[in-house]
């Protein structure tokens, strides 16, 4: 057990750029620096590279045409653009939108904005298993529902949502379907046609691509009001000089994810199970947060009862282990994760959540190291708590 060891268990927060991705991007900073909208040689090279990236992304997600791919500055922008751009284009005067209650803030934020502007928004609750159930969506759908947005995989719990069924229900009711696939694309099979969705969000830095790059998939024919206007780039849907290197980085990163996806699913699922079982057997009062079996291979999300998340995180950091906790918003450790609350987790437990997310460079040894350093940390924090014994100790039983 070395204190210099660095164990990164927060791939769901962000990933390092894969060296192969960086290599693919590098020429576009210097020699191939042209503006993709310029007509001369160096501009045409940039244009060709950009359009090549667009085609490769389209192919990777099963899109019918490259122009369904719009490059953006990240998952947050794509989410905002989808929610507001589609809703306002279809129902400029108001209407009804459904988003799940455990969406990322990049969806909840624009949903609140629409509400302020007079739209009706339903925040559809997932059930305790961490899944949005089709019957619940069906009851929420209304005649004036314009858009439904449910994330493909939840970024905290890792639970995978039945997007194809949800999309079918939305369509049956005349609504469009958007899914935030920032956490799932590349990790698990993702095909826009098989899922039957109209729009989707991707973020490059979750899949070993560069930060500041994302994609909005917009099925051909979906009406859309651009949220950033100007020169009319990206088929008039997203203005601004394109980040050509970034687009190539994203396309390359996504292709690399797909290359060994099934092997990685198996490998990471194994690591996750080892992690979850290891924690549960080493520590009393711990459990996997969401009961659904259909979860991302790479996210373990657990409740460590009677411990506060940030203190756990910082102690792990001192041991060189990077994890996250649903309650780590620095607007106060007092604010528990809206995701956990949405599935009915009591507040006092929600404060003690731990998310460990694994990736390309995670090894068995990393898990072993974690299982060595983690239990003493929890035991120490529990011993320091004025209420642990009272609430969870054997005397409390």
């Amino acid at each position, binding site marked *: 057990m070395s204190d210099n060891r660095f164990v990164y268990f*927060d791939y*769901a*927060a*962000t990933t390092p750029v894969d060296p192969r991705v960086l290599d693919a991007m590098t020429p576009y900073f210097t020699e191939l620096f042209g503006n993709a909208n310029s007509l001369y040689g160096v501009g045409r090279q940039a244009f060709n590279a950009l359009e090549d990236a667009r085609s490769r992304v389209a192919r990777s997600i099963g899109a019918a045409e490259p122009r369904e791919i719009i490059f953006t500055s990240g998952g947050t922008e794509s989410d905002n653009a989808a929610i507001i751009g589609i809703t306002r284009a279809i129902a400029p005067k108001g209407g009804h939108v459904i988003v799940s209650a455990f969406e990322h*803030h990049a969806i909840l934020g624009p949903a609140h904005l629409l509400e302020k502007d007079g739209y009706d928004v339903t925040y559809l609750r997932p059930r305790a298993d961490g899944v949005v159930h089709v019957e619940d969506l069906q009851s929420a759908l209304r005649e004036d529902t314009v858009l439904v947005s449910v994330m493909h995989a939840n*970024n*905290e719990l890792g639970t995978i949502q039945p997007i194809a069924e949800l999309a079918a229900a939305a369509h049956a009711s005349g609504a469009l379907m958007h899914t935030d696939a920032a956490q799932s694309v590349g990790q698990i099979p993702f095909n826009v046609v098989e899922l039957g969705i109209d729009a989707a969000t991707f973020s490059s830095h*979750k899949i070993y691509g560069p930060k500041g790059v994302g994609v909005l998939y917009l099925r051909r024919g979906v009406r859309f009001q651009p949220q950033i206007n100007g020169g009319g780039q990206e088929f008039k849907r997203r203005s601004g000089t394109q980040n050509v290197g970034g687009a190539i980085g994203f396309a390359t990163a996504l292709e690399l994810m797909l290359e060994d996806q099934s092997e990685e699913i198996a490998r990471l699922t194994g690591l996750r199970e080892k992690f979850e079982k290891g924690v549960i057997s080493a520590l009393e009062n711990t459990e996997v947060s969401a009961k659904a079996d259909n979860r991302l291979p790479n996210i373990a999300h657990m409740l460590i009862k*009677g*411990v*506060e*998340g*940030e*203190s756990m995180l*910082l*102690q792990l950091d*001192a041991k060189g282990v990077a994890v*996250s*906790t*649903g*309650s*780590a*918003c*620095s*607007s*106060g*450790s*007092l*604010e*528990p*994760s809206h995701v956990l609350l949405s599935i009915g987790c*009591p*507040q*006092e437990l929600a*404060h003690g959540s731990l*998310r460990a997310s694994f990736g390309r460079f995670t090894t068995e040894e990393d898990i072993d190291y974690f299982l060595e350093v983690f239990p003493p940390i929890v035991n120490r*924090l529990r011993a*320091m*708590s*004025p*209420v*642990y014994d009272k*609430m969870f100790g054997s005397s409390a039983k």
Partner: protein
Amino acid sequence: MQYSEKVMDHFNNPRNVGVIDDADGVGEVGNPVCGDMMKISIKVDDDSISDVMFQTLGCGAAIATSSIVTEMAKGMTLEQAVAISKKQVADELDGLPPAKMHCSILATDGLKAAVDDYLNKNGREPISGGLAHDDPNFDPHAIEPEEVCDVEG
């Protein structure tokens, strides 16, 4: 959001952790539902704090402020102890991130509660002037205007 080195020191090596078995006064503030809770016990000698120990459930700042407040209080008169302000606690730790300023209230409130408990047990009037946590308008979520919201990815 960044903690100072001093905060990290007190978080990693908290001073005076535990419970004084024959405490003269005990304060308990906070609530596990809110994510932080502190229990502080004191020994009083000639209206001065001769010993103090704490237990805290909470974030890094909650633990560090608890720890520093016990160091600050030791040897103080009761009057001095209840006068410790959240700003003094933060200053003593070389500052706290704006979003964490409320944590120092947990520590100062805990100490005040312990002092009042001691006075109460001895049939004397409380001197703390009341706890922030007892104010029905107290919002432990209230944050300094400069606060930056950090986020999970």
